């Protein structure tokens, strides 16, 4: 019911409810804007289902999922190892990059 794929918003025609999205294959495709227009701008990372934008990828959300994961680990008495720490850094970097900050 929900095959959804991420893509990057290229441009919008809000008066028609239409936007163009690049799904990573370099070809912009027309999609319908299913959500609040104010959530979108050029460059937004969006999730598209059946040609409809259903959400954006929220940069804070990326890091929040890590908190859920690390709470789970901590409660179960698992050590936060090097791999998990670098995973956190990875999500943090991606989150910053999404916000338009450093792109390293």
């Amino acid at each position, binding site marked *: 019911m929900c095959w959804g794929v991420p893509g*990057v918003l290229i441009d919008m025609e809000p008066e028609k*409810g239409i936007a163009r999205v*690049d799904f990573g294959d370099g070809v912009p495709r027309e999609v319908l804007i299913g959500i609040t227009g104010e959530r979108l701008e050029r460059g937004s990372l969006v999730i598209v289902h059946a040609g409809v934008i259903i*959400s954006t990828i929220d940069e804070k959300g990326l890091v929040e999922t890590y908190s859920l994961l690390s709470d789970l680990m901590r409660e*179960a008495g698992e050590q936060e190892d090097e791999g998990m720490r670098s995973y956190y850094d990875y999500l943090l970097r991606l989150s910053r990059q999404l916000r338009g900050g450093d792109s390293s």
Partner: protein
Amino acid sequence: MSMDEKKLEATSPGELAERDFLDKLEGAFRSNIHVAVSLRNLIHRLAEKALMRGIGRIVIMDFCGTHEWSIVHFGIRSLMPRNVELVAGPGCPVCVTPSKYIEYAVKLSFEGITVYTYGDAYRLRSLRPINSAYSLQEARSDGASVQVVTSFIDAIRLANKSGRESVFLGIGFETVAPGYAVAFKKNIVPGNLAFLSQVKLTPPAMRLSLELLMKENLDYRFGVIAPGHVSTITGAKAWSFASEEMGIPVVIAGFEPIDVLIAIAEILRQIVNNESKTVIEYRRAVTWSGDEEAQRNINEVFTTIDDAWRGIGIIPRSGLELSDRYASHNAFEKYSLKRISSDDWEYDLPRGCKCGLVTLGKAKPTDCPLFMKACTPDRPIGPCMVSVEGTCSIWARFGGGGLADEVARSLEVY
């Protein structure tokens, strides 16, 4: 500046950066073996804890065909401890589309009307043939005008171009509904394109399946992986009835393997601690209240109706019909097609097929007497085998019933 020029300007310089975003996203939730292994260990630890607390068997139900797909595609069942079972619930809009409505679409396609359909519904078989065609695929091979599209906007564009009388077979859940709604609201659907609404609402179906399950004396503890993409629109709040009224742990999860593993771990944690909460794992895309404009648009363009689910029956307030304002686009009105009501609903699955029970999560594909005997992906009988997202089809094709796991063990390739 023309749209084409704009397109070129917008795509050339930034392209690499865009790909980079997507690659990194994939790295975060898919191809990260270290995190996957840590999660697998965590899940085994939690399952042991459950055992120590006297909880023998734990069943976790996914409600979304795409979750089931991820579980099978990434072999997640083979990572589970023995006492944790993953089962599939009603998550396939194709499987629950009544036979009658497929017959309507086939009939229209033979009457010279172009039918646009998603690939999923293209092969879906009806109970009765129309002009000896049991599906849109067969109708097309008989010369009917059927075209597979990937989105409503494709159908709009093609209908505009051809100018021919046409119908869009509008299946889907809350996920695609706001797209349909916005197209009607912005008035971009041409007059020659009618809409056969098969939009279903998921919370009523989840409630029904959970109530049916809870009526039985369960000898196991139970948790739910709730649909991540439906929730982007409805919000996580749509599922809280399950945790609050029924005491079932619910996690709204994304669709990458690491998302699913985190969701399973959280459900196990709640079971071990005797909690029941609705928790969002898919925090990068889902909020508690969902997208309000999308909800508003759906309410403006559609009316909620009691709707027929294939092999299940009429579920109250579980479907969407175009509202009167858009009646001229409504294929039911335009072609005088009758909606199924509770009076004339009939069991619409082939004899012996357990798709209804499989869809409700009450039976596994391997419990069906037809599975992989009379009913195979080559010769599908029930909709659960026809739809690529159908649980039976997924199990048959990818060994979801444990075959992959068995083979791997026998070869010692772990």
